């Protein structure tokens, strides 16, 4: 089970982040997770939103460069070693993490949600499910 992630090219100039997130907000789209990878001149904003299709359309309409890809949203324990355990599960199966970031949504008080991109989504989903982790669905992202 995977969820859709939008990657948006953002130039490093004042006001760009405010403009891009504003476009989403005005369209009634909620951001459930966000990360920004940046260089001196540009950044790539990766987001999980309440409605990926609509968000991509809104951004493209406003001349943003957007690609949509699949990532894994996994629920982990919000306590020491919660993160280490999930990394260990992947490591044991020889799956490497390309990048990851935390989401804003917590299903319960004791859990946290992690967004993962690995070199093999398929194997990662299998390994995590086998280890008893709960993966979040696209449907769960829609709840604002």
């Amino acid at each position, binding site marked *: 089970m995977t969820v859709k992630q939008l990657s948006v090219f953002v*130039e490093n100039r004042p006001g760009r982040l405010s403009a891009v997130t504003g476009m989403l907000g005005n369209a009634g789209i909620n951001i459930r997770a966000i990360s920004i990878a940046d260089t001196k001149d540009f950044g790539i904003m990766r987001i999980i939103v309440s409605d990926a299709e609509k968000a991509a359309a809104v951004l493209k309409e406003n001349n943003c*460069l957007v690609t949509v890809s699949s990532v894994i949203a996994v629920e982990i324990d919000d306590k020491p070693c919660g993160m280490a355990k999930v990394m260990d599960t992947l490591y044991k199966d020889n799956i490497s993490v390309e990048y990851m970031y935390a989401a804003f949504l917590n299903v319960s008080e004791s859990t946290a949600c992690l967004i993962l991109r690995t070199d093999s989504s398929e194997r990662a989903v299998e390994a995590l499910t086998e280890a008893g982790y709960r993966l979040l669905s696209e449907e769960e992202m829609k709840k604002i």
Partner: protein
Amino acid sequence: MGRYWNEKIECMAREDMKRLQSERLVAQVKHVWDNVPYYRKLMEEKGVAPEDIKGLEDLHKLPFLTKADLRDAYPYGLLAKPLADCVRIQSTSGTTGRRVVAFYTQHDLDLWEDCCARAITAAGGTNEDVCQVCYGYGLFTGGPGLNGGSHKVGCLTLPMSSGNTERQIQFMRDLGSTILCCTPSYAAYIGETLHDMGYGPDDIKLKAGIFGAEPWTEEMRHEIERLLGIKAYDIYGLTETSGPGVSFECEEQTGMHINEDHFIAEIIDPDTGEVLPEGSKGELVFTSITKEAFPLLRYRTRDICVLTRKKCSCGRTLVKMSKPMGRSDDMLIIKGVNVFPSQIESVLLKMSNTTPNYQIVVDRVGSVDTFEIKVELSDEMFSDTIRSVEELEKKISSDIQGILGIRAKISLVEPKSIPRSEGKAVRVIDRRKLH
């Protein structure tokens, strides 16, 4: 309808064409000598009289005319007919220095439009076609020239002029335009807009486009052909030499046939002025041989190109000129190196199906030139990781260095963030000019 507008001329045997050119040259020189004191003085200074010009072989004896002469003689100094006989002027945009004004008698207009009719016919145009002209009308020669040519061929002519792109596309769809005439950058823009509006080549009837008035590359041709689903033909001309139609492309798309019954072409060494043999790269020089109002003898175009008389598959015997490899006016000297925007364009268009939108920014910090190329990222170029974007940046940078020998800072920018003009694209911002 045949493949030629004027088969007799376009396929004339070389010897016959030489005879025709010689005859017309002698008459044109006499016309200029008698009516243009400015040029007569140049001839006298060089010690040449009309009697010395007996034919084509004597052409090299005549003095050159340059753009500077046109400015000196502005506005009437090169006029060879009384104003009462003139019916039209056209003019350059005058972005560099004083504008150039060219005069036309009715006869001149007829010949000019005839040249454009040859270009439209070579692009497959007949009286069955709907020809949409989106060159600017007015003083600019693009609109009036192709408009007149389109009338001659008998196409249903849409005198759209440039701008209001969505309306252009609406007319194109509603009236089933089959031929598009405009600048190549506007053609690319129309193509992009078409796709942005959710249409593709199958939603329009266009089959050919005739594009000129600014330099463009083979890669840009492919891009336009892909976006609009057409064959894109080049056309060449200068306001000084009447306008578009001095030369035009045939279906072989390997250079432009020069209308030699109206213009004699030479290639010279731009430094020494010496005439170079066929096949050499050098500055293109035109001599008009049928002009009434504004004849120009040995006019230096500043365009660098090559002439060839290799047999063309279209059957025309008219000499072909290559796409100008850059106009010396467009050339930038950055860090002491000659840079033509077309070189940069050819690099960029090799990076997948890039939208050809870029801007060169040159500045000077202290005594050192800075050289930046802004490139709009397209969907095909963008992927999710920083690494892949940085790799693309590096690839462009190393290809540019490979072709120019100097480094440029490549800045990848968001789509549509470089300002577009609907006529000519502003490709260069040179902030070094401080005067």
